[in-house]
């Protein structure tokens, strides 16, 4: 079994009126299967309200399935005795960095997680050091978090999660509130965690460019998985993605537009280099 296995997952939100009477039921996740192997870099795309975040919250037992089962590192999230193990195995990073930082000083904030786990003091400091180094924030360890940029704060949030030594990290739109530089910093840090530390990464995002390095992409729509495959396979389907309120990277779009004009461009061009090579072929 992989690090994460999901079978027949259904989750429903019950809508209530002001008196608390049930008005209706929204099925946010509808019969989803997912298999993620240790060390994978998985991206989840989907429009607002497609069920991505609800699915993500099942991966570290913030929500429990209404139907179906979620196993994290072989442990069923429905079993209460596993909750803390699961949350240590699968750490979560959210959209707004300001809601996730509590420490007065960067290194204290990062140490908060392992301290709560009862890690011996000496080891806490070792973990803080290695975590901050992994996201490139070690030189800011004595800073007050409110002196940092959005991208830096978000990297501190990520360090706070990896200090708990998770096998898997779930990031729910970690770059949505950042400027281009902050976005790049965070994505670079996330890719390094995956490449170097071999931590499984599950990245939820609206930025198509952040997805091209993933091993596998899932696209959600109406609580179901509508498309899945490698980034190349998924981004080959420009029209389907547009119907799902999504987009493709700009370079993919340009190649696609040229193909419509009769150029022999391959589908799912993901990088500028691929684009140049493909266009080079057209000149021969």
């Amino acid at each position, binding site marked *: 079994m992989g690090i994460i296995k999901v079978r027949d997952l259904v989750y429903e939100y019950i809508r209530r009126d002001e008196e608390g009477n049930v008005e209706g039921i929204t099925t946010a996740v509808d019969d989803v299967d997912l298999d993620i192997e240790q060390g994978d870099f998985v991206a989840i795309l989907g429009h607002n*309200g497609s069920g991505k975040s609800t699915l993500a919250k099942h991966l570290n037992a913030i929500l429990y399935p209404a139907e179906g089962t979620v196993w994290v590192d072989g442990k069923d999230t429905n079993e209460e005795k596993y909750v803390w193990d699961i949350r240590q195995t699968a750490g979560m990073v959210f959209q707004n960095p300001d809601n996730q930082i509590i420490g007065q000083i960067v290194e204290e904030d990062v140490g908060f997680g392992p301290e709560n786990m009862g890690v011996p003091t000496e080891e806490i400091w070792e973990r803080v050091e290695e975590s901050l180094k992994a996201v490139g924030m070690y030189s800011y360890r004595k800073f007050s978090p409110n002196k940092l*940029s959005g991208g830096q704060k978000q990297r501190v949030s990520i360090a706070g999660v990896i200090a708990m030594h998770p096998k898997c990290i779930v990031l729910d739109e970690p770059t949505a509130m950042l400027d281009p530089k902050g976005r790049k910093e965070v994505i670079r840090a996330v890719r390094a965690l995956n490449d170097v530390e071999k931590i499984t990464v599950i990245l939820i995002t*609206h930025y198509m460019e952040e997805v091209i390095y993933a091993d596998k992409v899932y696209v959600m729509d109406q609580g179901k998985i509508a498309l899945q495959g490698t980034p190349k396979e998924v981004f080959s389907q420009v029209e389907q993605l547009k119907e799902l*309120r999504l987009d493709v990277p*700009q370079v993919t779009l340009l190649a696609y537009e040229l193909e419509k004009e009769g150029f022999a461009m391959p589908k799912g061009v993901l990088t500028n280099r691929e684009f140049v090579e493909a266009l080079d072929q057209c000149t021969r």
Partner: protein
Amino acid sequence: MPIILDNVSHIYGEDTAMAVRALDKISLVIPDGQFIGLIGHTGSGKSTLVQHLNGLMKATSGAVYFNGEDIDSEGFDKKKLRSKVGLVFQYPEHQLFETDVFSDVCFGPKNLGLSKKEIELRAYAALKLVGMEDDYFYQSPFELSGGQKRRVAIAGVLAMKPEVLILDEPTAGLDPKGRDEILDQIAKLKRETGITVILVSHSMDDVAKYVDRIIVMNKGRVMYDDEPREVFRQYQELEAIGLAAPQVTYIMKELRDHGFDVSDDVTTIEEAKQEIIAYFKER
């Protein structure tokens, strides 16, 4: 009505040890009817700047003129200024509070002391301008999708009939379709009503696609103020301050590096496509 900033500086915590110069001698002219993109990394002074344009913040030194009048002069009607210069904050849907969509949009004009009929006409027109269907008017704003909520919040500002509309990252957190819908709607509004629009954005691709003038802020100063093409020509300088050119500009540069004789003075997908087609025709 034009806005003129004359040597405007703003210092947070002046005369304290924590004093920060957020705006440093900014001089700008914002004439009627322009579509302006305001870019700069987090902390560059963009939000501080826009809050000076409708008098929410007061310049530490220098002056802001609206239609020739100093907005800090005695007797200047700031309330009126704020109805003329509408500011849509980041995540404006957090400011929705009424029980239904229509009442929420009515709130602004109601505070202007207009007649009930005028208020409702304005609210109706504003909701139409942002593309909200009648079916939603009496729904709770909290039951709408993220993109719809944001449009209702923008309608609330439009109902004040502003002459200048400032939007601080109106697409943050929206999915790509929602992003295009909001920006297309704003572009259409701009075409139809001729109002001035100032778009604060982190997306170079969006800015390149929509605006006709870009103001680049860095460390509280205006670093560039020009047409998108001219600004993005300085891509290396932009990168040095945490910004970039649109992605398509980099594709064209890479093509040039590989011996394709195409212009890299390109900022949108459409321009790139035409440029490449023309190049292949000429061969």
